């Protein structure tokens, strides 16, 4: 008997012109591992929310068809009633943490679903151990890195021991090793797992079935092997490209020598050096918490090192890894024009280059998450800087958009020095001339 059934589901968000999902039908069997792939804005997250009952209960809108999960029809049962049978991990861990302490955060769902009190703490500690976060049990949530927080959020859903585990881009904040660990833990749970990812290789290695969603419809529902033959090329697993020829010595635009930096006396960078030359693209990789973002911010002049020397030539622009930071103005074009003293013509050209033409007068908060990513990028690229520093520019970006971004950066590479901080090794291989791996052990030596 199927664990979940979706029958002819069509759903339109309030005030939306067209449906986010159109006539979607599928059935999920117990124990299946299903990869949900597709472009940004295709309806993947909406489908996952429908299975958790959040669509339509939380979002409103027009709902046609039927979704039944673990014998509960989501039109009659609220998401809170489904909790326990269904558990969902959302994209952004910052937006799902309720409590100030890790153990309490993991216990929250167990308390809500009425777990016997004597079972709560043992299940909390077991779930934390499962995701490799037992040592974090007594930490305050606000002191955790994004990667650590994502593990805590996963522990919180695993503790519920759900029949259907829904993961909406669960590894977007994690380094490759962390992402593999998280997905392995989720897939070994024995539950039906539905995982949406923008790094498709990870779920494709583990899944038994693939759903490809495009423009609100399931355009492919196949076994893994069939899917590997039918998926668009950009979604297929591959090895990272070999690095291109390193360009000849160019003008040095940014030089960091023997830089050290600490947050509240906790050392993050110790004796680190880096040189960026015009014409080259450098990828900075390494595990979560090793100091990649800190090094990028020091290079951009946003952080002053405690010791060491930083030299920069020309204009430097830094793209934060959170596109939600590029929502200061009331209109998209004004936001993009901030970096060029309000020059709207330049802003509109930059927006058009990133496929945002026609959205110039919209409020930035009305944009979809994919459009926000592109607005953030346009807001930085518009300045045509000599030194461009991009911090995780592919987080939540679908494979075709990543390919476009790589091509754009390569096209303009000769005009500037570019530093890309990324966990995405495929993207690093596609875009970079040189990869600088930063690891904890080599922190002082690299």
């Amino acid at each position, binding site marked *: 008997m199927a664990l979940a059934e979706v029958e002819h589901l069509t759903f339109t968000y309030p005030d939306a012109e067209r449906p986010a999902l159109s006539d979607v039908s599928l059935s999920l069997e117990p124990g299946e591992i299903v990869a949900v792939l597709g472009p940004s804005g295709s309806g993947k997250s909406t489908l996952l929310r429908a299975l958790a009952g959040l669509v339509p209960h939380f979002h409103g809108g027009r709902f046609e068809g039927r979704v039944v999960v673990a014998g509960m029809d989501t039109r009659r049962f609220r998401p809170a009633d489904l909790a326990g049978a269904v558990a969902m991990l959302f994209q952004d861990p910052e937006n799902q*943490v309720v409590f100030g302490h890790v153990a309490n955060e993991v216990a929250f769902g167990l308390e809500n679903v009425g777990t016997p009190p004597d079972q709560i703490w043992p299940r909390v500690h077991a779930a934390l151990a499962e995701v490799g976060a037992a040592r974090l049990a007594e930490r305050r949530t606000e002191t955790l890195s994004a990667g650590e927080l994502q593990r805590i959020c996963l522990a919180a859903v695993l503790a519920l021991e759900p029949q259907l585990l829904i993961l909406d881009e669960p590894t977007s904040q994690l380094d490759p090793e962390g992402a593999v660990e998280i997905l392995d833990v989720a897939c070994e749970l024995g539950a039906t797992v539905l995982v949406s990812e923008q790094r498709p290789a990870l779920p494709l290695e583990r899944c038994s079935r693939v759903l490809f969603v495009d423009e609100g419809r399931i355009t492919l529902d196949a076994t893994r092997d069939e899917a590997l033959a039918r998926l668009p090329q950009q979604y297929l697993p591959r090895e990272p490209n070999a690095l291109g020829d390193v360009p000849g010595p160019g003008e040095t635009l940014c030089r960091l020598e023997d830089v050290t930096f600490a947050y509240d006396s906790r050392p993050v960078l110790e004796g680190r050096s880096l040189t960026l030359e015009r014409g080259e693209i450098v990828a900075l990789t390494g595990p979560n918490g090793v100091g990649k973002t800190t090094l990028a911010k020091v290079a951009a002049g946003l952080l002053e090192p405690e010791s060491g020397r930083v030299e920069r030539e020309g204009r430097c622009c830094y793209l934060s890894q959170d596109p939600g930071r590029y929502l200061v103005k009331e209109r998209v074009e004004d936001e993009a024009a901030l970096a060029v003293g309000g020059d709207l013509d330049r802003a509109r050209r930059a927006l058009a280059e990133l496929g945002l033409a026609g959205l110039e007068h919209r409020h930035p908060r009305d944009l979809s998450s994919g459009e926000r990513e592109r607005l953030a990028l346009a807001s930085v690229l518009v300045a045509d800087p000599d030194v461009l520093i991009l911090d995780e520019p592919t987080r939540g970006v679908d494979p075709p958009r990543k390919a476009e971004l790589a091509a754009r950066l390569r096209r303009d590479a000769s005009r500037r020095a570019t530093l890309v901080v990324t966990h995405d090794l495929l993207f690093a291989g596609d875009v970079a001339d040189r990869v600088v791996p930063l690891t904890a052990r080599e922190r002082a030596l690299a």
Partner: protein
Amino acid sequence: MSPVPAAALLAALAAVALITDRAWVVAAIATGLLLLCLRAPRGRRRLYLFGTLGSALSVFLLSPLVSHVGTHVIWDGPKIPVIGYLDVTSEEIAAAGIQALRLAAVGLAFAAYALLLDLDRLLQAAGFARRSVLAAGLATRLVPTLERDAAGFMEALQGRGVEVAGARGRARLLSPLVAGSLERALNLAEAMEARGFGRVGRTRAPSAPWTRLDRLALAAAVLLVLGAIWL
């Protein structure tokens, strides 16, 4: 110490600071609470201490100028429309001093509550009005979140070469900060509902039993308030 007696003790200290007329008592409470707050991490305590001590200093500096109490004039200032003469008397300075100390003591008690107490366990201890206490806990956590968001907006602007300087520059971040908070609140509400919040039949994780120190702290809190009223 468990959070309930600790919160009761902080509330009692704030109440004593408001009730008593003895300046040295208020000063001792404010100093003790300041030392307590200094145990919090530097990054977290900065906003609370700056806000509390800045407000107290403002009260001390401005209050003598706008009040008209006492006969021992120290400074004879000009006449300002609406406010009147800007005289400063020794009585006004003494009154301003104790008001500033009171404000500092109450503010520091709240800062110690927000910075040092385990608010989650305080919430767990609430046997009633759980939703209200949860809302209060989330509101307290909003302060560091807003601080982080403000720093993020500033960084994103500076990363584009846009200078954010002065009160006017920072004021234009207010609207995106509020909008961001509302968006985060919606996302959080969705995540809470998905985790069963609001479902009938919830249970509570067992908490550690109170120690002797906890019982002593609660008794001290009661005695402090009674003593302040009696004396």
